[in-house]
């Protein structure tokens, strides 16, 4: 399937879709902020639901602002549907979480085998965790080097996209 950016609806089988709002346009680069959702997002009270991330960094939507280059004439305030390649999402999650967890258990397991005490096991696990985070950083740099994992413009949000959320 050809991977053109502006005109074709590339469809749900290849991309994980999400809605975002254009907050700034600077030349050929548009800055978008994703629309936050609740953990369920399916009841009538979801707009007022308190389970929205309670002051966490990611709840500050500005922190998750991202750029879209070569946009098709977007204007500030427009709602668009962007997509991330589904395999890229899984690879990103594995890179960010699986690598540190593996090194956490490796460090903790080695410490438990060597000393057998809870205190040293904790130190070993934490050391492994931080080493894993370093390895994840290297893995993430490699993952995003090709540019295929960046969010892509799919279409302008229409009536069918009026319920924001993960699709």
């Amino acid at each position, binding site marked *: 399937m050809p991977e053109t950016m502006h005109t074709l609806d590339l469809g749900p089988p290849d991309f994980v879709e999400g809605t975002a709002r254009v907050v700034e346009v600077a030349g050929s680069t548009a800055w978008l902020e994703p629309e936050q959702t609740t953990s369920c997002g399916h009841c009538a009270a979801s707009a007022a639901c308190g389970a929205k991330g309670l002051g966490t960094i990611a709840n500050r939507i500005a*922190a998750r602002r991202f750029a879209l280059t070569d946009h098709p004439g977007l204007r500030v305030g427009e709602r668009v549907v962007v997509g991330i390649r589904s395999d890229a999402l899984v690879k990103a999650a594995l890179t960010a979480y699986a690598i540190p967890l593996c090194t956490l258990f490796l460090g903790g397991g080695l410490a438990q085998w060597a000393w057998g005490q809870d205190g040293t096991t904790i130190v070993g696990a934490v050391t492994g965790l931080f080493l894993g985070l370093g390895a994840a950083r290297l893995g993430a740099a490699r993952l995003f080097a090709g540019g295929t994992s960046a969010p892509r413009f799919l279409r302008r949000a229409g009536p069918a996209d009026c319920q924001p959320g*993960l699709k």
Partner: protein
Amino acid sequence: MQEYLLLMVGAILVNNVILARFLGLCSFMGVTTRVDTAMGMGLATTFVITVSSMLNWAAQAYLLEPFGLGYLRTVVFILVIAGAVQFTEMTVRKVSPPLFQMLGIYLPLITTNCAVLGVALLLIEGRMSFIESTVFAFASSIGYSLVMVIFAGLRERLALAEIPRLFAGPPIGFITAGLLALAFMGFSGISTV
């Protein structure tokens, strides 16, 4: 080694956190429309549950128990979990800003996930050592992720099926979840002791 394997089998299948203990049902129903998003959410939850359970065990062993502060357990655990989520967000953002943009949406959803607190309280009740607690927490979250992915696959199939109007949406989802819970009850015959 065998006891760790049995602990894992028990936590993943026999006492599955979603289908046997009925924890974390909110995100189970809300983030399982696609297998990819379910996998992302499952991995994020696995990381947070494992790290927060480690910290909660340490808080229980070195702070609450020695000083007789058991009545503060729930409050302290919730604070630790919120801190663990913040830590995860900060580290993911530091590790890779593009990763944070991609995965950041899952993290605030975990703060209010009752499965995280539930697993922490269960491992305290089990009076396990640090490594056993960490393995139990990791296995519980793997069970959580497994069920999320299975359910997401089922819902993707259901989206293509002809469902009676009255059952469309959440009703058929809950019926499917109930049938899945019945299927997992078959694992309860496995002896882990």
